[in-house]
């Protein structure tokens, strides 16, 4: 199992390998000068500050919404749940663009940019990374323990914080981690909203400086930043802690807090947040479509791009999930130093900008997998590298909440370990695996830089089409693709949440 897990992580680590090879070609003195400059320090500070603020906000909003929809009697919880998941479907560059153009419309002459703007925009599209796993985990918590806490005189709120949240903690922290790393790696929003972060500097080096090596040197700093985040996160989590108890499962329906007179403020706050996140970019899209005269491509073009997006998203989702499962089981079942390191490493690659990952896969395709270069397979490989943690987080959380005693029971019934995993652990992990798969699909649909670089020649997806048209200021032509992109990404989000809510009954 260790070998399989190493292999999985190895795939995710290809870009790191590339970074190593390339950084070695860079004169050491220049490398050091680029990395240890005042500018680096400033960018790093900005990156970390933005990461910290956005992550905290995402945790607050994500957990708050998850609690409201899974653990209270809030009226209209289901619709809120579905709506709350949707912003994940909006690419950060579309959101940033939307916010900015709405700002110009609403208050011309003012600018919408900088740290605060970036915080608002990025938070509005990343909090579902916390919301979805948190909601899933909150529904899974063993009610027997909550009952025990209540019987020990703790009120519902106290019980919630001292027992329920603690059980959901692995899922919540992994969601927070995804947010943090997303912020570190985000380029679209920060470049539009003009916040100087490290990723933006890496992009500038690549895109404007044709300075590959400089970009790579800076990328290595990104990795260091990510490690900082991982260490911080590690302090909040002990993977080895057992959260599962036998006899749990969905013993009784999850307890709900009756919301009573808090209903109105809760509704306003929750819907306010969700609607703002959805409506601003949505209105911008509508406005572009209305204002422009450029004609959207033919139905065939739109349909083709849609199908292509669906296809790569499904392939990417399946491949990434397949890689994540053995790693997740290994991490949950053999909590060793190796397992912890592998998990961290899987997250590392996620923090690299798409260009860096794209270039590393180009190198691989040109020099090793020549037959596969510019085929779908290398593209899928790049997705695996980029998205592995998205699938891994929920899968690990799910594996942790599946009691290992059940595997032993299966083995005692004559099933080999692998079969025990397949027939017992896997079905018990299914909700987590499903969430991971959908999360990957959704992110693949939005992904642009690696897709552009690695897609088969002539292969267009919704994201590449959107890029083509917006690059040409043809916003009206771009609008249907943007709408479809959001809709396609909304399907997984909706599936995820509706499955969650079904489980609950």
């Amino acid at each position: 199992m260790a070998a399989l897990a190493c292999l999985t992580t190895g795939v995710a680590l290809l870009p790191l390998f590339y970074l190593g090879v390339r950084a070695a070609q860079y004169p050491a003195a220049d490398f050091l000068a680029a990395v240890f400059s005042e500018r680096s320090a400033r960018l790093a500070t900005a990156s970390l500050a933005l990461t910290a603020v956005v992550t905290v906000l995402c945790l607050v909003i994500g957990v708050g919404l998850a609690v409201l929809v899974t653990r209270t009697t809030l009226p209209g919880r289901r619709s809120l749940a579905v709506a709350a998941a949707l912003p994940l479907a909006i690419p950060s560059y579309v959101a940033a663009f939307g916010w900015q153009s709405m700002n110009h419309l609403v208050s011309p002459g003012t600018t919408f940019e900088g740290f605060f703007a970036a915080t608002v925009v990025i938070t509005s599209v990343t909090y579902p990374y916390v919301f979805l796993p948190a909601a899933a985990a909150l529904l899974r918590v063993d009610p027997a323990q909550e009952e025990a806490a209540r019987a020990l005189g703790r009120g519902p709120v106290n019980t919630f914080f001292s027992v329920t949240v603690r059980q959901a903690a692995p899922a919540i922290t992994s969601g927070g981690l995804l947010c943090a790393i997303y912020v570190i790696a985000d380029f679209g929003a920060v470049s539009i909203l003009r916040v100087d972060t490290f990723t933006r500097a890496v992009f500038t080096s690549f895109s404007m400086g044709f300075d590959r090596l400089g970009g790579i040197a800076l990328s290595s700093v990104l990795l260091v930043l990510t490690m900082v985040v991982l260490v911080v996160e590690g302090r909040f989590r002990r993977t080895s802690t057992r959260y599962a108890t036998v006899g749990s499962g969905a013993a009784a329906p999850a307890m709900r807090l009756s919301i009573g007179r808090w209903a109105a403020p809760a509704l306003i706050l929750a819907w306010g947040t969700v609607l703002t996140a959805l409506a601003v970019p949505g209105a911008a899209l509508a406005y572009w479509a209305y204002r422009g005269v450029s004609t959207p491509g033919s139905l065939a073009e739109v349909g083709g791009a849609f199908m292509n997006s669906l296809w790569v998203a499904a392939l990417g989702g399946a491949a990434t999930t397949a890689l994540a499962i053995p790693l997740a089981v290994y991490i949950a079942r053999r909590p060793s130093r190796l397992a912890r390191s592998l998990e961290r490493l899987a997250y590392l690659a996620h923090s690299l900008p798409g260009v860096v990952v794209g270039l590393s896969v180009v190198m691989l395709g040109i020099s090793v997998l020549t037959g596969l270069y510019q085929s779908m397979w290398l593209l899928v490989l790049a997705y695996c590298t980029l998205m592995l943690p998205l699938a891994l987080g929920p899968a690990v959380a799910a594996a942790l909440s599946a009691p290992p005693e059940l595997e032993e029971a299966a083995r005692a019934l004559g099933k080999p370990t692998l079969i025990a995993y397949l027939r017992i652990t896997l079905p018990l992990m299914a909700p987590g695996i499903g969430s991971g798969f959908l999360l990957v699909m959704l992110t693949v649909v939005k992904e642009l830089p690696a897709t552009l670089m690695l897609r088969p020649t002539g292969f267009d997806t919704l994201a590449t089409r959107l890029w083509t048209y917006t690059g040409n200021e043809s916003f009206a032509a771009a609008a249907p693709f943007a709408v479809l992109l959001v809709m396609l990404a909304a399907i997984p989000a909706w599936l995820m949440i509706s499955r969650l809510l079904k489980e609950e009954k």
Partner: protein
Amino acid sequence: MQLTGISHRYGAHQVLHNVTLECPAGTATAIVGPSGSGKTTLLRTAAGFLTPSQGQVMLDGTDITSRPAHRRSIGLVSQDGALFPHLSVGRNIGFGLPRGQRGGSRIGELLDLVSLPADYADRRPDQLSGGQRQRVALARALGRRPQIILLDEPFSALDAGLRERTRKAVQKVLRSTGTTALLVTHDQDEALSFADSVAVIQEGTLRQAGAPENIYNLPADLATARFLGEAVVLEGQVSAGWAECALGRVPLRNESPTGFVHLLLRPEQIEVTEPEQGILGLVLDADYFGHDTTAVVRLHGSQEEIRVRQLNTQPLEPGETIGLRVTGAAVAYPPGGH
């Protein structure tokens, strides 16, 4: 605490039928009944985790049927312990304590109460054995000194010695604090020795409630009798307060119409003697239990088979012929029961 007319159904499946039970403050009541009879369900209703389909839960005269669990001052030890896996043993126990007591010696005292060494406070629940987990759950519930404590088979994973020790310790604590206790157990001995009053539930219906001696000596029906201990049931004819049966003439403990009845005796009432000194029987089968042997004996003449318990000073062997003699009185039940 009073439970009045409690009924509960899971979906289409009715589990409790109109159960009424009174637990006077400061007393211990034991609920016994076969597996699946609804004991846990009744307890969860009292604790406030289930709202009964019908009936009320009253506490000191107020209806608390819909008061939330944490405001009932009720302690609960659930059947599977439900320790918090993310907290150490010490912090599990400290969970219900007021903040000031969590650090002090109180946790050590509570561990001691359930015969666990104080250094177990640092263990995690998954590092405990089954019985140790159960004891931690017990210590956790007792720590709060609740007004009422609900115990769902709290000693089931303990060996006899430890069980008795723990039971006595718990009993002492409960008595000294005047706590009302409601104990679910499948162990009849435990029920009879722990409780001031015993309630027998079968198939969701309360069959009988009362003092242990009453319940054991005058069970409401044969099913209850059988549940509370081994029963020897013989056919007999009653006349004038005496019954005639395969074991001879025995006095009756209850009023009974004359005529055909079923007679209940306890195995310990049947003394094994030399063949010539009693009614003859043939030992068919014998089970060894350490301190005694339980034998199945076919009675000479009537072909009825009964179970006899004999202390192991003179073990019984299958095939042996023995004499039998009844001590004390029998209970008569009208025919038609089982």
